Structures are given as structure tokens and as C-alpha cells.
């Protein structure tokens, strides 16, 4: 608990964004770990074992939430950057060149930069809760789409729309707040 409490709480905060819910998830994780603890021998893998339990608890939380209110969010970013595409004529639907994706110089170098991750967290924080949740389940945890749909009781088509808009919005936000500024802190 002393060793991993903070770390698990940070993980949970990234997913749930609510200190009370995150605290619950951490508490349930430790309770489950205590129960199953005897069976667990390898200490080196302890942290990832706890993270595994935590992820299950977070999934339980989403499952419960999706039973109370539908998880689908088709409102967010519904215009899909419409203003950045040509509105009519032969080139309708094409990027307006100055407003389209810009070149990101050496994006890999940002991965070790704490300020990049601060920018990422800010951008991710602007996504609505449910959109961020499906993005995290799919991209961070690498769960497959069908599993996410079953867990949250949403259709595959709606999942794809939500993921598409989440990626689009994150890409745009990182471009504006990070890469567009030369990868420097804003």
C-alpha cells in the first residue's frame, strides 16, 4: 500500500478523473489483492499484477456506469473539423491546405519530455468522459473493439465514430498546443 498507493491512484485518476471514484478503485484493488495475495509469489511482477487488478476494477466501474446511462456519445466533435475541409465545389471534403495536418518534427523526441505529457494530459482532459474512456480502453490498454462494445453495451459503429473523433480531437489539440509551437512548452 505504501509502495504502490500513489502510483495506482494516478493510474486511476487518468482513467476516471474523479478523486472519489479513483480512491474507491484503489481501495478495491488492495482488498482484492489481499484476498488473492497468498497465491501470489513473484514480487518483481507485483506492480503489474496490481495494475491488472486495478484495470479490472476500472472496467467494473465503466460497466456499472453504462448500465445507468448509455455510454454512447455522438455529440462530441460532431462537426469533425468541418471548417478545415473545402466546403463545396470539385474539391469538396479535401483539406484546406493551410488548415490541414502540419508536419510534426521528430515526434519521437517528445516522448521523454515531461511537458509533452502535460500537454497530452490537458488535451485528453478536454475529451468528454466517455469518449476518453473508450480511447483509453482501445489505445492505452489495447482491448479489442468487440470486447469494449460488450463491456459498455454500445454498437461497433458508434465505437468507431467515438474513436475517430477522439483521435481527431487529440491530434488537433497536440498539434495546436505542442507540435505547432515547435515542441516547446506553451
Amino acid at each position, binding site marked *: *500500500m505504501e509502495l504502490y498507493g500513489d*502510483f495506482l491512484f494516478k493510474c486511476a485518476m487518468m482513467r476516471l478523473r474523479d478523486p472519489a471514484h479513483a480512491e474507491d478503485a484503489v*481501495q478495491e484493488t488492495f*482488498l482484492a489483492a489481499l484476498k488473492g495475495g497468498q497465491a501470489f509469489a513473484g514480487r518483481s511482477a507485483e506492480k503489474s499484477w496490481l495494475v491488472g487488478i486495478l484495470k479490472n476494477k476500472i472496467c467494473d466501474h465503466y460497466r456499472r456506469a453504462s448500465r445507468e446511462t448509455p455510454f454512447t456519445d455522438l455529440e462530441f466533435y460532431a462537426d469533425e473539423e468541418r471548417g478545415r*475541409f473545402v466546403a463545396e465545389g470539385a474539391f469538396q*471534403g479535401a483539406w484546406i491546405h493551410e488548415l490541414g495536418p502540419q508536419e*510534426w518534427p521528430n515526434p519521437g523526441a517528445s516522448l521523454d519530455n515531461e511537458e509533452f505529457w502535460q500537454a*497530452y494530459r490537458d488535451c485528453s482532459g478536454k475529451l468528454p468522459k466517455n469518449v476518453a474512456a473508450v480511447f483509453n480502453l482501445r489505445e492505452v490498454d489495447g482491448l479489442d473493439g468487440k470486447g469494449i462494445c460488450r463491456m459498455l453495451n454500445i454498437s461497433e459503429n458508434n465505437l468507431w465514430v467515438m474513436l475517430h473523433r477522439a483521435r481527431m480531437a487529440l491530434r488537433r489539440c497536440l498539434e495546436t498546443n505542442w507540435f505547432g509551437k515547435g515542441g516547446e512548452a506553451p
Partner: protein
Amino acid sequence: MRWLRQAVGALGALSPTCKRATRLQSEAMDRRLSFSEKLGLRLHLFLCKWCRRYGRQLKFLRSAVRGCEEHESREAPQGLSPEARERIKQKLQSSRE
């Protein structure tokens, strides 16, 4: 050179719009595209450097965040509050007894 312009024009007519291509590139990360979707997208990416960038950036985003709890510095900065820590400790204690 007229034939070249015509050829590019014909290819362009078969290719989806950029707006559609952004959606297809995202969906290609989640499901198998149909043959015609794949063909159209390939054709589009061949012609359009903005969408090639877009696709590269989506893949960068995926590789950047995948498994990011391995790197503590990438998580939210604030940890458990002392009060929350105490509450959890007590709960664990009482479950032991």
C-alpha cells in the same frame, strides 16, 4: 501532358475525400476495411500528403500512449491525499480482522 492530368483526375474521382479518408484511417486501426475501402484509401494516400501525415500522426499517438502506465511520469501528477490514504488503510485493516 494532358493524358497525365486526365489520369490523375480519374484516380482522384475514385478516391474518397480527405474527410472520408480520416474516418477510414481511424477505422483501419479498429477493424478490417473492406476490399474497396482499402483500395480507395490506398489510392487516396498515394495522392494526398496531408492524409499521409494524418495517418502517421494517428499511429504515433497510438504507439505513444500504449501501455503508458509503465511510465510513471506520464500519469497525473497528484497522488493520494493523506486523508484518502488513511481511509484506505483503515478499510484494509478492518478487512484483515
